[in-house]
């Protein structure tokens, strides 16, 4: 049930844009609208996924732990649509243009690196992978912080002058990372 609610909430931004297209028409630059919306929500949903563990620890909401995966996969879904919009719709699968973007534009490299990491996380998000990887699974899935950081950097490098939206994301990510470090620092010393 809670998974269904979270998936429905995660789909709302996409539905809102679809509704706007249906009611107001596509507007001047619908490809840009789709690109921006999917990019922003990919990052935001990954940040939401990262917020689950701190919330669980600080408020004792043990039941929300499984939502980490649901939110992370929802973020990956947006990232996938974002990648498809960029490569197929925006660049028209023009191979040279895609290669040029990937090799010459740091913001594209950062975005592609973030997507690659999210793909690895999505592919190893099953119970079978958790069993197979054992302790290594936890280490592997820490790269979600790297993916989120790359997402924030990707956003920063695209901006012309108004950094406010990217700063909000950066502060949220720093806060989530800080909460995790705070938790580790408070744990009694233990032998590894």
């Amino acid at each position, binding site marked *: 049930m809670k998974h269904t609610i979270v998936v429905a909430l995660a789909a709302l931004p996409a539905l809102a844009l679809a509704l706007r297209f249906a009611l107001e028409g596509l507007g*001047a630059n619908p490809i840009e609208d789709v690109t921006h919306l999917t990019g922003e929500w990919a990052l935001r949903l990954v940040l939401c996924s990262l917020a689950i563990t701190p919330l669980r620890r600080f408020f004792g909401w043990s039941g929300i732990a499984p939502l980490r995966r649901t939110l992370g996969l929802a973020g990956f879904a947006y990232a996938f649509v974002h990648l498809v919009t960029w490569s197929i719709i925006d660049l028209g699968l023009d191979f040279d243009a895609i290669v040029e973007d990937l090799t010459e534009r740091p*913001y594209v490299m950062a975005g592609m690196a973030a997507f690659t990491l999210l793909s690895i996380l999505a592919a190893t998000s099953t119970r079978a992978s958790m069993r197979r990887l054992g302790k290594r699974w936890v280490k592997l899935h820490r790269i979600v912080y790297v993916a989120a950081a790359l997402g924030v950097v990707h956003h920063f490098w695209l901006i012309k002058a108004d950094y406010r939206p990217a700063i909000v994301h950066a502060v949220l990510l720093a806060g989530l990372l800080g909460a995790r470090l705070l938790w580790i620092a408070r744990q009694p010393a233990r032998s590894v």
Partner: protein
Amino acid sequence: MRIRESEVTDESLFLSRREVLRLGAMAAIGGSLAGCPGAGEAEAASPKEAPSNAKLEGVLEAPPRFRVDDERTSYKDVTSYNNFYEFGTGKRDPAANAHTLRTDPWSVVIDGEVGNPGSVPLETLLAKHTLEERIYRLRCVEAWSMIVPWIGIPLGDVLKRFEPTSKARYVSFETLVDPEQMPGQKRSVLDWPYREGLRIDEATHPLTILAVGMYGHAMPNQNGAPIRLVVPWKYGFKSIKSIVRIHLSEKAPNTSWNDQAADEYGFYANVNPAVDHPRWSQARERRLGEFRKRKTLPFNGYGDEVAGLYAGMDLRRNY
């Protein structure tokens, strides 16, 4: 261009017609500027399919070399998708927020290296000129473009009236500063006022105009009412909006985006598919309303007219 004898208008008739056109245009501009602000607010809040500002009468159709054949971008797209950071940094912000701009009364200060400086009411500034419709390409530095039927007057004709001195080598422009009317100025996203500039030969080039309308009607607030610059061979940010000052100088002026990030936005900012923005490609562009991107043309397709202005210059360094 060849003109048949039968098409040549008798000079006395021509002059009288010019006079009629001029008076008609003036009445329309005056009327639009004095128009009731309430109506302006309603239309700015949600851009309609068709213009609702005052229609400009007696507008001369410019010669073919000032009118590109490409299909015009829809009025709705041109008025609902653009950059005008004075009203917010989103593309839809100007249409949503520009209704607070008051364009009447409006004066423009013309000063610096001119023999005849002063603060000139907009009506007076326009009174001696005939409005022309020019259909230009506009290419944004963000790699989107549109085709706009502007209505305006050549900047060179205006400057001449104020008698530039021999020291006048550059022309710079400033946008209004008033955070109450321009809520985007409450944040210092850019160092207000917005400033732009041209070399004097660029400013007096026949393609360069001061525009007061588009699509047959007075300029919508979100597109730079009541008077803006249009320099079609340069990236859109050079075409400064809602101008309150025109300054002639011997030294090159500072310009807003160049101050913001000099390595990304040069003083010249000529459209050039061969010189990429440091962060994105300028080789192609998306024309608003089109699905596939198209190739960007050198000098935005105006190379025959303007490439000579930059003869001998390294356009890679003078981007």
